[in-house]
Each structure stands twice: as structure tokens, then as C-alpha cells.
């Protein structure tokens, strides 16, 4: 009788070794991949590793049992979505893909013994480690500001959660004709168009619910990623008048000044740089003077998530240096750092960047274990953002490793064209919502 076993062996031989992963050929236990962080980067890596080879033991260490997605979270503020709608569960990754979850805080790394220890005292050994801790907000970067103030009175709401709900409540109940100040962060930071989208969405919301309200962006920078196309949108929607140097850059007809615009952008050269917060009097002191406000939203300076510091993966920049072709840390072997925490040159700190980095690293790890060459990497970033709820903008990038060894953009155009038709603009807003839906599926479903 030809046994099933013999048949399988014959099949394996005829298929050749290339079809059989190295880890099985060598007769070893499946490789153990530990992923620290269950956000966009970590969750994507877990899913794509299991897709590449279901036998890999993939374990995600994540503090929160339910993920709150940051992308699109400013839409809680303008009542376009709810806090509940931001919640994403890990059930599918666990049940369909076989990813193991440890809901605990990763505390320390032993890169020699190749173990990660959690706050709960669990020790996890790994063959390959992926660290995707996202960002940490440097509340202390603005004198007078603190995490405690952020949670009680002056929210940052840049990592979504209770602060998002608090800011939404403050904005929606702001006194008639009140002033909302958003302190924009210095570079580099998570979601480059995000602060400006938030200010614009609130300008639009106030126009309906609190028409005498003012929105001020106090900025330590003189430019931002989607500035030209965003300001064109603000001009059309809110009568915003861009600073003089933008008038020649924006290759489209601008509406002339009408009634005073509710939205004001104080760039660094106009004195916008935030210098100190006086929470008692609700005053933001900037280089140009004091701004008394009813609601203040501080988006502070950022660094890699705390875990990256605890694991010894950061350099003086506060972020993690990596080998570009593999995103393996230059400081610890077999440890890959992806997403906002990594130094990825021209790639923005965006969810989409983290997502394509995660897939690439999953591929590199699966190929390394199987003894295959991964070829040269290519990454993308596409972000839709809003100037108003029906006015979409975007950034679209394709990235490769350039001749100087750094990651650079290879496509030419990057933004919504100035001559975009009303249909393209509105469709970009439709696609902004579709992007959130499709992107969440690719990571978690």
C-alpha cells in the first residue's frame, strides 16, 4: 500500500527544494518571530509573515487589547465619525491567520540571548524581532505642558484615545465666537498633513455650528507637506489668504479677500512658533506674542516610541537607524525597526509607509529563513487628506533606495494637481474614506 506519507515525500521531492521552506528542510522547529507593537506596522508584519509561511510562530506583544486607529481620528472632532468607529479588533489576525497575541508591555531586550521581557514578567525568545512602537509625544518639549495637562485640560490627541474624546468635547462645546489654537509640531512627526487637516475640518465644522469662532494654527515651521494644495482648498472653502510667498507657488486662481477668514496660519516667520503654555490662563505664548484661547490643542515634538529607547535602538535623533534594504537595526542584529520609529529618509512617518515597510520586512525575513534573495525593495506612501469634508487632497509617493544609499522618491508628481477638476477633488474626498476602509482591511482582516 502506498501510504499517504510516501506520496507526500515523493511530492516534496518532485517539487524540488525551492518550494519547501528552509526551516522545514533543516528539520528545525518553525522560526519564532516576535513583533513588539500591534499598530499599523506590527499588525501588517504579523499578517504578511503568516501569509508568507503559515508555519512561522508569530507573536505580537501589544499593550492594548483593542486598537484605536490614528488615521482618520481627527474626524471624531468634527462629528464625522465616532470614537467607537476607530476601534479595531485583533480577532481575525488571531483566528484566521494564527497570530499569537500577548497583551502586555514590552520592557527590555536582550539582543545576545535574543529575548524580550514584558512588564508582566514573560520572557519571549525570538529568531527575528520586529519593533514597531510608533511615536512617543514629547510633552516636555513645550515649557508649561505636560502629559497630565494633556489628559485633563489641553489635549494633544495625536495618539487617539481619551484625549481625542476630550478635545472633541471641548471643541463642540466651545463658547460662541471662541478661539481654537492648534500648536503644530516641529519636524519630524507622525502624519505630516494631519495637523492642517484637523484645523481645516474644525474651521468647516465651526462655520456651521459656531460661525464666529476662530481657528489659529501656531506653527514652528514655514511650510508643510501639502501646503500649496491645502491652502488652495482653504481659499476656495473658507476665503483663506495664503502668505505672500505662496501666491506665486499656487498655480491656480485664488479668491480675493472677502470677510475675515476664520482660519489663520501663523507660520514661524510670522511669529507662530509655540514657546510656552500657560494652562491657568489658557494662553499659548508664541515667538510673536501671547494668544488667549478657549480650546488649545498642542501637538508636541515627537520621538520613537518609548520601547525603542528601552531596547537601545535609538540614536541621538530620538529615532532608530536601520539598514535601508532590510530595516534591520544598525545597532542590534536580527532586530528590525519599522514605521514611525525608524529613520527612513524621504519616507514620511505615515501609516501607509509603515504598512509597506512591514510587508517588505515580512518578505525579507521569510526569504532569509528560506534562503531566498528578496531582490531590491520598493515602497509606497499614499495618503488622502481633507481640506473640507468633500474636498480631498493627497500625497502619493513611490520610494526606492537611491544611488546615495538613502531612500528617495522616484515618481515626479506628488500632490493633487492645481488644475484638478471639481470631480477629481470630490472624488479624492470619497477615496479618503475608502482608503480608511481598504487600509484597515489590508492590516487587520
Amino acid at each position, binding site marked *: 500500500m502506498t501510504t499517504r506519507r510516501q506520496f507526500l515525500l515523493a511530492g516534496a521531492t518532485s517539487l524540488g527544494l525551492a518550494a519547501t521552506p528552509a526551516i522545514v528542510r533543516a528539520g528545525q522547529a518553525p522560526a519564532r518571530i516576535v513583533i513588539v507593537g500591534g499598530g499599523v506596522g506590527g499588525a501588517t508584519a504579523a499578517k504578511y509573515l503568516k501569509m508568507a509561511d503559515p508555519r512561522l510562530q508569530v507573536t505580537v506583544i501589544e499593550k492594548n487589547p483593542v486598537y484605536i486607529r490614528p488615521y482618520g481620528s481627527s474626524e471624531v472632532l468634527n462629528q464625522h465619525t465616532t470614537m467607537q468607529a476607530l476601534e479595531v479588533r485583533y480577532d481575525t489576525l488571531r483566528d484566521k491567520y494564527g497570530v499569537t497575541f500577548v497583551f502586555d508591555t514590552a520592557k527590555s531586550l536582550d539582543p545576545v540571548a535574543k529575548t524580550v521581557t514584558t512588564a508582566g514578567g514573560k520572557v519571549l525568545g525570538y529568531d527575528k524581532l520586529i519593533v514597531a512602537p510608533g511615536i512617543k509625544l514629547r510633552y516636555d518639549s513645550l515649557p508649561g505642558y505636560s502629559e497630565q495637562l494633556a489628559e485633563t485640560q489641553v489635549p494633544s490627541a495625536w495618539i487617539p484615545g481619551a484625549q481625542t474624546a476630550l478635545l472633541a468635547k471641548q471643541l463642540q462645546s466651545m463658547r460662541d465666537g471662541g478661539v481654537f489654537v492648534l500648536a503644530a509640531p516641529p519636524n519630524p512627526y507622525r502624519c505630516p498633513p494631519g495637523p492642517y487637516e484637523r484645523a481645516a475640518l474644525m474651521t468647516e465644522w465651526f462655520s456651521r455650528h459656531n460661525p464666529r469662532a476662530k481657528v489659529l494654527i501656531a506653527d514652528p515651521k514655514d511650510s508643510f507637506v501639502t501646503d500649496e494644495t491645502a491652502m488652495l482648498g482653504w481659499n476656495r472653502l473658507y476665503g483663506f489668504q495664503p502668505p505672500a510667498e505662496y501666491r506665486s507657488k499656487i498655480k491656480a486662481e485664488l479668491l480675493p479677500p472677502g470677510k475675515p477668514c476664520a482660519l489663520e496660519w501663523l507660520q514661524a516667520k510670522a511669529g507662530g512658533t509655540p514657546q510656552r503654555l500657560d494652562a491657568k490662563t489658557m494662553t499659548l505664548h508664541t515667538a510673536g506674542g501671547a494668544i488667549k484661547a478657549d480650546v488649545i490643542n498642542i501637538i508636541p515634538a515627537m520621538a520613537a516610541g518609548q520601547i525603542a529607547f528601552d531596547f537601545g535602538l535609538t540614536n541621538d535623533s530620538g529615532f532608530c537607524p536601520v539598514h535601508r534594504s532590510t530595516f534591520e537595526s544598525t545597532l542590534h542584529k536580527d532586530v528590525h525597526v519599522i514605521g514611525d520609529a525608524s529613520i527612513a529618509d524621504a519616507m514620511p512617518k505615515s501609516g501607509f509607509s509603515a504598512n509597506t515597510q512591514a*510587508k517588505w520586512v515580512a518578505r525579507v525575513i521569510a526569504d532569509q529563513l528560506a534562503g531566498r534573495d528578496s531582490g531590491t525593495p520598493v515602497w509606497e506612501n499614499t495618503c488622502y487628506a481633507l481640506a473640507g469634508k468633500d474636498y480631498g487632497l493627497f500625497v502619493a509617493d513611490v520610494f526606492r533606495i537611491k544611488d546615495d544609499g538613502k531612500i528617495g522618491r522616484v515618481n515626479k508628481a506628488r500632490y493633487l494637481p492645481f488644475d484638478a477638476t471639481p470631480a477629481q477633488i470630490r472624488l479624492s474626498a470619497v477615496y479618503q474614506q475608502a482608503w480608511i476602509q481598504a487600509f484597515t482591511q489590508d492590516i487587520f482582516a
Partner: protein
Amino acid sequence: MRFRHLTLTLVALVFAIGLLGANAPVFAAPAATMPPPPAALPAGPKAPPSGAAIAQTCAGCHGTEGRLKAAAFMPLAGMPKAQLVQAMRDFRSGKRPATLMRHVAEGFSDGEIDAMAAYFAAVKPE
């Protein structure tokens, strides 16, 4: 929820401008004013990205392995190779209107588009 607010016109536009349909109406600037597609990317010491690796970068919008449920974007799983190759080339030249697909298509060579399209054509749609 949002789609309830959209007019039929807009729904029609989704299909007209979306990825599907070689017969989508063209209402961008005429092709003659568009810059030529980029030259082939220089050969490096390593193999170019595989079709599967390129396809992964599409998945954030077009679904894991091109399989997508209930979003406005076009699922790519099982799309005939020639159709996807033509769509990407037309996006890249500007012949075909888009929001950001022209920008994305600019980043890829003919060979890479072929490899990516071959990958998606071989995926069984769900």
C-alpha cells in the same frame, strides 16, 4: 454611511474615474501635452522587485493580494494581465484620468508593471 450623501452623479464618477474599465471616458488634458513615460530604471546589482513585492505596495488600497471587500477602489485579483498593464500605462502617460494613480504609476517601469500585472492575474478573486 457617507455614501448615502452622494449623488448618483458621483457614484457614476467613481466608476468613470476608477481603475476599472478600459472604456472609461477621458476628460483630462489631451495626451499630446503629457510628458513621456520615464525611462527604464537602471539595472542594479540585485534583481528588480518581484511582481509579488510590487503588488504588496498596492494592497493598502486595492486589497490584500488584490482582494477587496466593499470599498470604492478596484480589486485587482484576477484582473486580466493586459487590462491592468494598459491601465497602468495609461495612468502613467496621463491618458487616463485619476486622482493619484498617475503619480503612483510614474514610479514603475514597463517590466515592473508587467510583473505586477502577471501576479494579480494569477490570483483567484474571492
